[in-house]
């Protein structure tokens, strides 16, 4: 779960206004774990965890590339990437996570992106070239911020339509969505408003939901959760479970062994009773009724909706 990669910044590209592209390599210069197109990397940005789509080739990679938009006035991870990072700096990341993968059985892949939302599309296009998948791209970006335009042109050629005016984008979108062969899958990434418009128009034109795929930035990253306290009924001891630490880990650190297997909220091994507080269930094991009852939880993933939980341990 918490396997961490140690990475070094081996390249920085600031050639596009407001967007900084990083090349990251393994500290020892070796291979990095391969990744599925559309995957993101959860990067440690000076103590904050931010998710960025990988734009490089996922087959047997020696480097990862990401592109980070400088969010105006932001004080978070993007500002840290833009202001604090230099070539040679080290940081860490979780293993790439896949949540926006190409569908292998698609007859054609229609890729619609806005702005920095082009990033996962670029890795889709790289894989499409390797496997000779049929693609078509519609990409809208601000005139002064042409992120990955060269990559898209190189990878998609004539199948890419790149516009800078929102009106042009809207004008093209309708005919594009209406004119696809059966079996086409649509992938869209960008600002929430753009995703909403694209999906609404596709649904209106009769696209089945199973053929529509969208990615809001970092939405799938496992939420580290809010901190909460746990009171151990047997001794009255009060422990704090910090954000990013599971209840199971907190109990283990306190010397309490809980039977467990998958640590993913699936196998059911680490179920513990709850005698006080309101559990925040995040597992796949308990039934809805059991979750509603609130008298037990899977401590590997679930947390608390109340400031404290009481467990008879």
């Amino acid at each position, binding site marked *: *779960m918490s396997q961490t990669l140690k990475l070094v910044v081996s390249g920085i590209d600031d050639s596009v206004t407001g967007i900084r592209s990083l090349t990251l390599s393994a500290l020892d210069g070796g291979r990095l774990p*391969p990744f*599925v197109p559309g995957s993101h990397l959860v990067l440690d940005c000076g103590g904050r965890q931010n998710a960025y789509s990988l734009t490089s080739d996922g*087959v047997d990679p020696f480097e990862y590339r990401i592109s980070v938009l400088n969010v105006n006035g932001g004080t978070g991870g993007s500002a840290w990437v833009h202001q604090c990072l230099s070539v040679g700096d080290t940081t860490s990341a979780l293993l790439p996570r896949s949540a926006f993968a190409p569908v*292998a059985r698609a007859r054609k892949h229609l890729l619609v992106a806005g702005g920095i939302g082009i990033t996962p599309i670029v890795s889709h296009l790289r894989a499409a070239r390797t496997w000779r998948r049929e693609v078509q791209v519609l990409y809208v970006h601000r005139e002064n911020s042409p992120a990955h335009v060269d990559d898209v042109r190189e990878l998609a050629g004539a199948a890419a339509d790149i516009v800078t005016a929102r009106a042009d984008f809207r004008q093209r979108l309708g005919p594009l969505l209406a004119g696809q062969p059966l079996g086409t899958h649509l992938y869209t990434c960008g600002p929430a408003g753009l995703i909403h418009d694209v999906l609404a128009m596709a649904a209106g034109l009769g696209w089945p939901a*199973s053929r529509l795929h969208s990615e809001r930035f970092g939405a799938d990253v496992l939420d580290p959760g809010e901190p909460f306290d746990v009171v151990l009924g047997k001794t009255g001891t009060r422990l704090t479970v910090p954000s990013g630490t599971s209840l199971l880990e907190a109990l283990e650190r306190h010397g309490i062994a809980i039977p467990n297997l*998958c640590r*993913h909220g699936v196998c059911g091994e680490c179920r513990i009773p709850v005698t006080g507080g309101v559990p925040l269930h995040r597992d796949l094991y308990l039934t809805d009724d059991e979750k509603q009852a609130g008298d037990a939880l899977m401590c590997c993933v679930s947390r608390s909706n109340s400031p404290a939980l009481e467990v008879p341990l």
Partner: protein
Amino acid sequence: MPLSTADPLLRGFPFPFAEDRYRYSTNIEPARTPVFTPAGQWGGSVLDIDTEYQAELRERAAILAADPTRGAVLPHMRGAAWDTMLTLMRELAATAPDAIRLTREGDRWTWENRILGLRADFVYGDEATLPSEPLHYIASQVQEDIVLLDQRDGALYGDAGVVTFAADWSFGFDVGMSFLEIHGPVPRIRQERVIVRAHEFLKRLQPHQPYRRTNWTMTIGRRLDVSTERYYEWGPDRETIKHADDETFGRLVHLRVEVQHLIRLPESGAILFLIRTYLLPLEKLATVETWRRRAAAVLAELPADIADYKGIIKYKDRAASWLAARGEGAE
């Protein structure tokens, strides 16, 4: 226990019972965690090359030659087949680094398997550079059966694989079916939600976090291929074993354990499901006292519906008493 540690089949045997009672469960755990047993250990790596390596691969080749429907790659699984090949090549090389090597220079990959005397120079994604289709090529070099699951529309589909050692099922029949359809016949699963949870787990499984589980049944004779296709050959043994004398019973009846690995492939995103089959005759199992006692207890207690589904209902009680009797001063 000098006898057991000397026998390689005992040493690496993944004895599956953690308690004196068996029920279906989503018994998944992280892969690559070694398990120490009274006879040795297993599970330190995803792939296991043991003393049966060459013999089992010869058997797989003969089965495939006689019945090509044991392997299939639906057209959209081409990328997943390549991904599987590279993933398993890496695993093999890590398991036997002295004999097996994978190297890459630019676009050219070189594969050397000195145990089998094989070498290939290939370009990833280019079938013309391999002696056979990539999934079949790698299936000829691992003892594990392989099933690939495609994920789409919120479900998983068994759209590719090479399975020559199926335990009472047919890959050719199941290919293209959904995970839930394939597991429809398993008893009790509706109430116990075991398969549904496994399905949810697999859909969320991420690359680089392989998991594993064990499953088990019993087989008469050291017969890896007890597929539906050859039921006419092995099915009657379930009846005739009743008439075997005790010595023959202990020699022929095997505990059959599958170590199954669940892996999200790192480039295609398909699920790689590996099934490795281990067979141990009761006469050898009984030489490990804790195994003998526990297997006897599990078989004696096993409910009829589970025993029936596993195809052992006709002889599981005799197996239980055979094992129990072995403890009563037989040694």
